[in-house]
């Protein structure tokens, strides 16, 4: 527990620094945040105008389709809020400055993964949670469905964590981060809509190999009462396996770190 508070304090300090850094270019921050909100609004408007004509998408109503989109945003934004440091990791490895991270009395993975929350995303999380709550409650879910939803969102975040750790590890081994993380984002973007719209073999790929379906679609389905307790169990098993494998991959990558340029 003492260790937890230690890391919480470190995270708070790093996030505060990150926030102060952002304040140096306030206009850019404001424009960027506005851009994100507008993009969200545009896609929401698209779904609305499409579904008022088609009535359903892959069997899901407008409300349900919007809920899939909101759940995607919730998981995506929270992951970006916590793991923004991953996007800044490459220069550390390329310049050899990662040595300094390894020497500090804390987990190098923690520093590389969560070394500065993205305050831009913090502004969007509360309204997003409210929107999820509002649209979700319109579907009158049972308490069990709500519990499954929360558990599977947490599982989605666990899978997102595993992906980010894998990206960091790959970054140490190949010096490539920027495109890997953007490809991860492009893949998760495929989860903006229910996974049921895809055909095989893409659907299988997105369900089992790169489990975007389990990460994003499944929580929304759980709230609609389409996932059993068994499904939740297996999803969690997959999340834990992925997380464990990503930690092993990180350890392997650390052994390959050459400290070049330092």
């Amino acid at each position, binding site marked *: 527990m003492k260790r937890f508070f230690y890391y919480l304090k470190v995270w708070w300090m790093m996030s505060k620094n990150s926030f102060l850094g952002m304040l*140096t*270019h306030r*206009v*850019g*921050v*404001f*424009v*960027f945040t*506005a*851009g994100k909100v*507008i*993009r969200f609004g*545009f*896609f929401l*408007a*698209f779904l609305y*105008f*499409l579904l008022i*004509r*088609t009535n359903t*998408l*892959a069997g899901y109503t407008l409300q349900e389709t919007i809920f899939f989109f909101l759940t995607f945003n919730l998981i995506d934004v929270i992951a970006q809020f916590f793991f923004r440091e991953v996007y800044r990791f490459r220069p550390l490895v390329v310049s050899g400055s990662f040595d300094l991270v390894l020497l500090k009395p804390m987990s190098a993975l923690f520093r590389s993964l969560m070394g500065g929350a993205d305050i831009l995303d913090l502004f969007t999380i509360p309204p997003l949670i409210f929107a999820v709550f509002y649209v979700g409650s319109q579907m009158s879910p049972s308490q069990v469905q709500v519990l499954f939803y929360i558990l599977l969102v947490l599982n989605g975040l666990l899978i997102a964590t595993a992906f980010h750790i894998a990206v960091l590890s790959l970054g140490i081994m190949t010096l*490539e981060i*920027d*495109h*890997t993380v*953007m*490809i991860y984002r*492009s*893949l998760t*973007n*495929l989860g*903006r*809509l229910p996974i049921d*719209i*895809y*055909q095989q073999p*893409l659907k299988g790929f997105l369900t089992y190999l790169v489990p975007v379906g389990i990460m994003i679609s499944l929580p929304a389905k759980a709230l609609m009462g389409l996932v059993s307790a068994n499904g939740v169990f297996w999803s969690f098993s997959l999340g834990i396996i992925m997380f464990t494998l990503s930690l092993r991959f990180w350890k392997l990558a650390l052994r390959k770190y050459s400290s070049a340029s330092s």
Partner: protein
Amino acid sequence: MNKYLSVFKISFAQEFAYRASFIMWRVRNVLQIFLVFFLWTTVFANPQTELFGYNRDKIITYIFGIFILRALVMSARTVDISGEISNGDLTNYLLKPLDYFKYWFTRDISSKALNLCFVVVEVFLLSLFLRPSFFLQTDPVKIILFLVSIAFAVVMFFGLLVLANLITFWLPESGWGAQFLFIVIFAEYLSGAVFPLDILPTVIQNILYKLPFPYLLFFPLQVYLGKLSTGMILKGLLFSGLWMTILIFFMNYVWHKGLKRYTAVGR
């Protein structure tokens, strides 16, 4: 002219210097098409469906058309102008005997050429995988007007992109924000790259048609798909030409104003 030809060749070769980066960028583009392709395939699951003025073939053609036109219209190196202004590298160009805009336009053309080469291969491979059926325009007049609208779109996008970058003269640390808002968000969504604009209510469409964005991708594709009468096409080309002129004029105006503020910080 020769010096710009050299710029073209060097820029083209430069793209190959970062092969992995370029290929990853293309992979991301290919991934993006899956969402829209399967979304519309689901909507048009019944081959008899007619929606928003599209049938299955036309909507698939629209999706692939956007994929190709994005490479042609929206591939650009001009995004780097912002960084050059903020770190003072712009000074190097001001001292050289070349026109700054012609230099960047040439680099854009080289980027478009390379992206287009890749897109042709990608469309071929995607066609094998997704087996889409396309709508083929056979009217030569419409094809010519389609090509003219693309030429206008290329110049318009250049103007928009340069203008978004020139904001850096006034906000050196925030040029990226302007680019994100105007190019990544507005140009992307309001040009029809994410969804065809005719799913929107007529009132909104009429407002959008007064802006430059729909003329980047949506309008050329409407011309190709034969959804517009000759009169409407000519009216669209007139608007598009007007916006092109305004943007180029405004680009030069802002450039001269910006140069007066430029302090070559970092040099």
